[in-house]
């Protein structure tokens, strides 16, 4: 019984130890980065902190220059999603997921039917959501040096305390993962329609030119709209920790002093009782008052309300041996852990440039503009357009003219690509027409 009490204390210390207010800013930053690096390895842009309030059609204003943005991304591991501009009312789920049960448009658009199957239902039902799978991530933790790899789930510090170990290796498995999306073409149409209605708003984010005042040079600024196309959600996280060192307790250094009481293989322990006791503590942790905790725990079992663990999920001890513990942490509803998006540079007049994939850009992958076209030479019309283009205001005229044609090809493509007819019309409409 004495050992059970000490175990209970260790768990309580573990829960207290994971309280964010006790962590230094540096540790918190590392939690974000290490988690994000793991998610990034799956070709997904990480979200930190995890949230369920992110979905395709969310539009963020990205204010940092692209070079700075890449630097922030590489440094922190994720991009702060701080300036939510709008949430586009996208349609097209019914068409994109044709034949898929319980996916539609309007009120049936994902994720609402999964989050709230009926107005009365307290539990989410993602059983009809498209599935996703993530690899198992390995990490190591060390109490002495802080968490050398940290993840935004509570199980790790709890497990470390349960093991009473100074350091451990572990694995994290993202279970019950889901994803849904709309094709980028849909979001392209929607963001352009929105930008036309909000040109005055976007105009304030036109690209700026470098300004030199004395010795101070203000760098040119470019702004982007980041439009979410796909999100990934996770409901359950399995964490396993394997002690790789002796206890951290000063009085017993070098002596393995693990959770013998939880070792099912140990005939001298009453494992079932220990499991029950520890899971009861985990379930009650973070509840506002002892009486409330008891009630909340009972209600949670009945499915009426979420488990009372404060940080967002319920932890359950799944397995323990003398050197290892495993937890299952379940969020009340699946949380978004990552996304894919497209970036649209805001141009002069609040117009939007062609989209570039956010992930490719952030990862420093080559973003070329399109398929190569053969140079056709500069014909007579090209030779007339080139000098005309250098005159003030004519580039804007040509851009407007090209946009009105619908194809929106680039000026460089127009001049020396396979567009002789278009060049002829440019000369006729803009050069000869203005004389």
């Amino acid at each position, binding site marked *: 019984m004495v050992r059970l009490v000490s175990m209970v204390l260790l768990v309580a210390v573990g829960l207290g130890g994971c309280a964010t207010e006790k962590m230094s800013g540096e540790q918190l930053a590392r939690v974000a980065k290490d988690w994000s690096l793991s998610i990034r390895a799956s070709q997904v842009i990480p979200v930190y902190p995890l949230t369920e309030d992110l979905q395709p059609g969310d539009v963020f204003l990205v204010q940092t220059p*692209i070079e700075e943005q890449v630097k922030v991304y590489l440094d922190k591991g994720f991009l702060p999603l701080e300036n939510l501009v709008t949430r586009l009312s996208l349609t097209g789920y019914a068409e994109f997921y044709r034949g898929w049960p319980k996916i539609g448009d309007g009120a049936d658009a994902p994720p609402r039917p999964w989050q709230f199957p009926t107005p009365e239902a307290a539990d989410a039902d993602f059983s009809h959501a498209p599935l996703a799978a993530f690899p198992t991530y390995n990490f190591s933790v060390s109490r002495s040096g802080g968490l050398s790899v940290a993840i935004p789930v509570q199980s790790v510090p709890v497990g470390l305390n349960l093991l009473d170990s100074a350091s451990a290796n572990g694995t994290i498995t993202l279970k019950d993962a889901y994803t849904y999306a709309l094709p980028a073409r849909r979001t392209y149409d929607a963001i*352009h329609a929105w930008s036309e209605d909000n040109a005055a708003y976007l105009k304030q984010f036109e*690209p700026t030119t470098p300004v030199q005042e004395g010795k101070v040079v203000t760098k040119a600024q*470019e702004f982007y709209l980041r439009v979410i196309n796909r999100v990934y959600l996770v409901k359950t996280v399995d964490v396993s920790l394997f002690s790789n060192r002796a206890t951290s307790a000063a009085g017993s250094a070098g002596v393995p002093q693990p959770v013998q009481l939880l070792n099912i293989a140990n005939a001298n322990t009453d494992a079932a009782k220990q499991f029950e006791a520890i899971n009861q503590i985990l379930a009650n942790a973070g509840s506002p008052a002892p009486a409330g905790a008891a009630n909340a725990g009972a209600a949670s079992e009945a499915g009426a309300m979420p488990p009372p663990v404060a940080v967002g999920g319920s932890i359950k001890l799944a397995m323990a041996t003398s050197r290892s513990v495993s937890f299952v942490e379940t969020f009340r509803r699946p949380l978004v852990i990552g996304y894919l998006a497209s970036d649209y*540079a805001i*141009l002069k007049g609040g*117009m*939007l*440039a*062609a989209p*570039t994939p956010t992930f490719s*850009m952030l*990862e*420093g*992958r*080559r*973003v*070329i*503009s*399109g*398929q*190569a*076209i*053969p*140079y056709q*030479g*500069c014909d007579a019309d090209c030779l007339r357009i*080139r000098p005309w*283009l250098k005159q003030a205001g004519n*580039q804007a005229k040509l*851009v407007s003219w*090209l*946009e009105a044609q*619908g194809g*929106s*090809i*680039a*000026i*460089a*493509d127009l*001049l*020396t*690509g396979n567009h002789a007819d278009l060049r002829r019309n440019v000369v006729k409409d803009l050069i000869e027409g203005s004389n």
Partner: protein
Amino acid sequence: MALQPPSPQTNVPRDDVGNVADAMLLDVRVKWIAIVFEATAGVDQFTVTPYTSDPTSGG
């Protein structure tokens, strides 16, 4: 609708590489341009490729 970014162009003769690159740079999204020699008999030709991000990192 904004213009598409410029496409890479192949078979660009040496004496027009500057003009082609100049036209590509009219698009402010273009930050880098690669000019790569194409081994051809007779006139020197190049492939001119615009990039919207640093092509020397990653990828």
